């Protein structure tokens, strides 16, 4: 037993009769996770944090938008209000509805390609509270504009999301929030599937940046 441990045990035994507490380190409760809609991804990361910030990044055609829409579908099916801050206005309502998103529960905010407006909109919506999922799509923004958002801003957004018990999801081409996010999922396209004269979809590799474990995710135009 080290000197520090012996001293700790001495103090504990002296005070145990006066204070009914155990001298243990405070354990942070495990984060509540919600499903992404992809079984493989859920088994890799456990889903995404119910409160906090998740960053999904990858090149074009890596499945970022499909994953985001799946998250929105899951959230609206739980009767949660959702908000999508669409920096470049790329969201496809028809595709989202066919993927199960209940559109009346979705607040769509289009920012006309302005990263500053997107950041301000995210701030306002997170501070308003009550949204189950708030998503920000920076995927079509210029890389320099997205990287110009300071780490302090990302940290403030994550802190506000945790305080308001909202899940804040950001998609982009590169990782922007870095250590400010609770979970980072990197997506990479692996294989495109063509069936005769039909485009059938593609397979992407999803990797949890913090654990470096990865899995394959299949995305189809017409899921069976």
């Amino acid at each position, binding site marked *: 037993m080290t000197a520090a441990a012996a001293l700790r045990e001495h103090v504990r035994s002296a005070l145990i009769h006066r204070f009914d507490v155990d001298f243990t380190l405070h354990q942070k409760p495990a984060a509540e996770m919600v499903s992404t*809609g*992809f079984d493989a991804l859920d088994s890799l990361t456990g889903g995404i944090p119910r409160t906090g910030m998740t960053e999904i990044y990858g090149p*074009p*055609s*890596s*499945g*970022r*938008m*499909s*994953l985001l829409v799946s998250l929105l*579908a*899951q959230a*609206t099916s739980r*009767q*949660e*209000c959702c908000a999508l801050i669409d920096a470049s*206005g*790329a*969201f*496809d*309502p*028809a*595709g*989202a509805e*066919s*993927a*199960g998103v*209940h*559109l*009346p*529960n*979705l*607040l*769509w*905010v*289009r*920012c*006309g390609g302005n990263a500053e*407006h997107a950041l*301000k*909109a995210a701030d*306002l*919506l997170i501070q*308003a509270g*009550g*949204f189950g999922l708030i998503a920000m799509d920076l*995927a*079509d923004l210029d890389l320099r504009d997205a990287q110009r958002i300071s780490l302090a801003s990302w940290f403030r957004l994550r802190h506000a999301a945790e305080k308001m018990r909202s899940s804040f999801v950001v998609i982009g081409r590169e990782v922007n929030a870095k250590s400010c996010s609770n979970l980072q999922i990197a997506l990479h*396209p692996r294989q*495109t599937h*063509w069936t005769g004269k039909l*485009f059938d*979809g*593609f397979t992407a590799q999803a990797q949890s940046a913090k654990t470096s474990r990865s899995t394959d995710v299949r*995305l*189809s*135009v*017409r*899921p*069976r």
Partner: protein
Amino acid sequence: MYACLYAPGNLAVLLECAQYFSPHIEQTTADTVVLRIDGLGPLFGSPDQLATAIANRIGIPANIAIATEPDTAIHAARGINGVTVIPPGSEAKVLATLPLSLLGSTPETAQILDAWGIHTFGQLAALPPLGIAARLGEEGTYLRELARGESSRQLRPIEEPLQFEDTLELDYPVDLLEPLAFLLARLINDLCQRLSSRALAANEIRLCLFLEDRTQHEAILKLPVPMRDPPAFLKLLQLELDARPPQSPVVKIRMALEPVKPRTQQQNIFLPSAPEPERLEITLARLMNLLGAENVGSPRLRDTHRPDSFQIDRFSTLKKSPDQSVPPPRLILRRYRPLKHAQVILSNQHPVQVSSQRIHGKVLTSVGPWRTSGEWWMPEPWDRDEWDIALTDGALYRIHEDRRTGRWFLEGNYD
């Protein structure tokens, strides 16, 4: 004590006179008004002096009666000319000579009483109560009480239409929004207090600013849910005036709230919470100020097959999603809005190279064309051949050729 004013054909004069003396007024019929006069003694003196004051105020020939019960005063005013003050306890004696037609009984009862030889209040009042009850039932008992001046009831006061409107005339024109906000806050607080005293909320705010150049600046805010939150109202008006400021200094402010019943919502502990309506309204107003109203809201698909056809509705938390299972995830298209014009080189009627402002590359794989068309009867029909392509940059795109113009467009990329 109650006073009854009776003057056929002069209802407006009767009401005006009654309102001068009391706020508790009943318009019994088109020629009869009853008012409560309790507590007027220190101002006008005895009931006789009060009756004289009413007679002087009314200014036209009218019958005035004062009694302890409203029905007694009504019968006395209708049956006795001039001013009648009935002291407590002598109601039956004063009313005794009045004809029974003033009682307003049913024709059957009136016929029976006439057959009995009963023609006045005094004769009816003298009949034994048990005999009346046995022969004429409940109505007979009630008529006997009226005839004796013993009936008792509450006044049914006139309810004025609720108006929550206030006007503020300014000594000096106000040309900045910040000092104007202080004045708006004053009006809002007063109006909300009045709403609160009647347990009401508002679903619309109407603001009319009278400007120095003799024009008016109007702002109407429709609220999705009834609210009664002065800070929220003030913030919404500030945001509205920030977006659309008046063009000239303000000399007069008129504000009106549309009263409605407050919302009653039972929260379900098994459902997730939604944004608070008041905070959500302010957030939406801020977002609309920042980005424009057309860029903030819920998307709703239009009832058409035209690709990418939707409209933006106002977002509300009141719409609940139906309980249904979520379909398996599917591939989603990221759309380019507006459509990007592309230059496409074809070989054997298949695209082999695509270049646009956004992308440039050789086509590795292409499938199509998928032809869609519609709304040929409209001014802007669509007729296109769609292709799904994989480019050398590693991404998958959807492009289409507009068959009417022969131009190619980059529609989006699968992501």
